[in-house]
């Protein structure tokens, strides 16, 4: 198994994160997030590296990681589209727009485009209900969606 080593930049960030807590295990989620952000996946090798950094077993890291939906064991696209389908968005027609987005990207919901650019996921409430229907792409929230607006947003990222 090829090892995973943190980059120098990541090491610095990890030091800063760990210093926030009296017990370093609290840095578990932030470290997983850091790896996910940089690698777009958390590999078993990265789990081992995190476990060594936080003095716990790799199995424990995996157990924690599997609990949260934002970590992926398979690589996701450059742009992660989380499409809210919960009640306020449902009342504002998100189902059709999700279908439209999937057709436009020519993928199934849950899939990634062939060029690894976009991954499209159904998502539970993202706390932007007053702008429903909405989606989140990486760190950005996009509300008041229409087919035209989805076209514009996706075209600007393509």
């Amino acid at each position: 198994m090829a090892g995973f080593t943190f980059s120098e930049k990541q090491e610095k960030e990890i030091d800063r994160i760990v210093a926030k807590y009296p017990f370093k295990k609290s840095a578990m989620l932030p470290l997983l997030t850091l790896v996910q952000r940089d690698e777009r996946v958390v590999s078993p090798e990265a789990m081992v590296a995190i476990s060594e950094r936080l003095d716990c077993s790799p199995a424990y890291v995996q157990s924690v990681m599997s609990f949260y939906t934002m970590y992926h064991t398979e690589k996701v696209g450059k742009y992660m589209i989380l499409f809210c389908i919960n009640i306020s968005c449902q009342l504002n027609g998100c189902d059709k727009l999700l279908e439209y987005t999937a057709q436009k990207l020519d993928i199934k919901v849950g899939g990634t485009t062939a060029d690894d650019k976009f991954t499209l996921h159904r998502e539970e409430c993202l706390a932007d209900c007053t702008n429903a229907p909405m989606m989140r792409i990486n760190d950005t929230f996009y509300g008041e969606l229409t087919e035209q607006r989805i076209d514009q947003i996706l075209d600007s990222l393509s």
Partner: protein
Amino acid sequence: MTQILFKNIDMKDLTDIEVYEKQGGYQSLKKAFAQKPEEIVAMVKASGLRGRGGAGFPTGLKWSFLAKDVFPRYLCCNADESEPGTCKDRELLLKNPHMLIEGMILCSYACSIETGYIYMRGEFHDLSFIMDKALDEARAKGYLGKNIQGTGLNLDIHTHLGAGAYICGEESALLNSLEGGRGEPRMKPPFPAVEGLYAKPTVINNVETLCVVPYIVNEGAEKYAALGTEKSKGTKLVSVSGNVKRPGNYEIVMGTSTREIIYDLAGGIRDDNNLKAFIPGGSSVPMLPADQVDVAYDYESLAAAGTMLGSGALIVIDDKVDIVETTLRLISFYMHESCGKCVPCREGTRWLHQIVERILQHKGTLEHLTKMEDICDNMSFKTFCPLADACVAPVVSSIKHFRSDYEKYFKNIPTGSV
């Protein structure tokens, strides 16, 4: 209209500490530091402020429950806002981060706390940058750090991001998550005030709750308590979403009629359809039919109407909507978010989902409604945390008020299809 939390909310650059200070920001610290910590707790008690996250527990009382003489103590701000329909905390964090920091400093002073965490849901990554910048500014100004304003108080506050789990909004699950574990709820007691984060006394408050505290310290408990009803004091942020013309976060005085919120503030029902139902406090509370729209928006009146104020998310549903489909969507949410620790929740949410799906496929019978109520009965108050009860609320209330929506699926069932 009285605005406490949203007074300057749309002011340009309010996230900048200089701008915030010009509006009187951080002034409450001087007032607070001139008094004893226990006087601040007494003041918050007297204000009648109750937790704005969902449970509505009296804030001052919560603070006074901290185990005596046990240190260190921790403050966790619950910014895991995930209750479907709720987006008020997001607006506060996005536009007025210093108000939260000020509230957290006051709470820390009152409760002798030296470390605070702001637990934000992972999807609020964008807001964590705003918050981190605001915390840096507060440190540079000497509002955080060692010996703050010469009072001897030491305090630092950090942001912490979750990673996608509704359950982490439940306070004991939040603590487990913050400790680096799976976000499963803990057995209570012990309550967090006695054994919380790292098994130390911990205060956990919602963003909105903490944001109210500077006003109480500045203006006095009486002024805050003069707003609202006898038992529901002050103002409340209400996130109005769904089929309304002007969805948005509105600050209302407790006791305002729900009709006024929907028809005046939010502009009424979109496309001039009629109101069919509304969920007053986020998806975890029972829905009410249109004829109860005059109910006053406060803890007691909503409880008397058979529902709850919850997180203050008013979801408005018009008469073009099929309640069965809406209910299925909510069950699906709770099924997805159940952590699986307690069997009634893990299995119950799944069974309810299977039954409602079957009903929607015209394969249901009247007996299924009885079965659903039976399952709900076996989920209520039988789990570590209230997620199961939250799932039960829309199911039972939808059957109670909108039985005909279900019944229309029972007609013309081909024989042998069930």
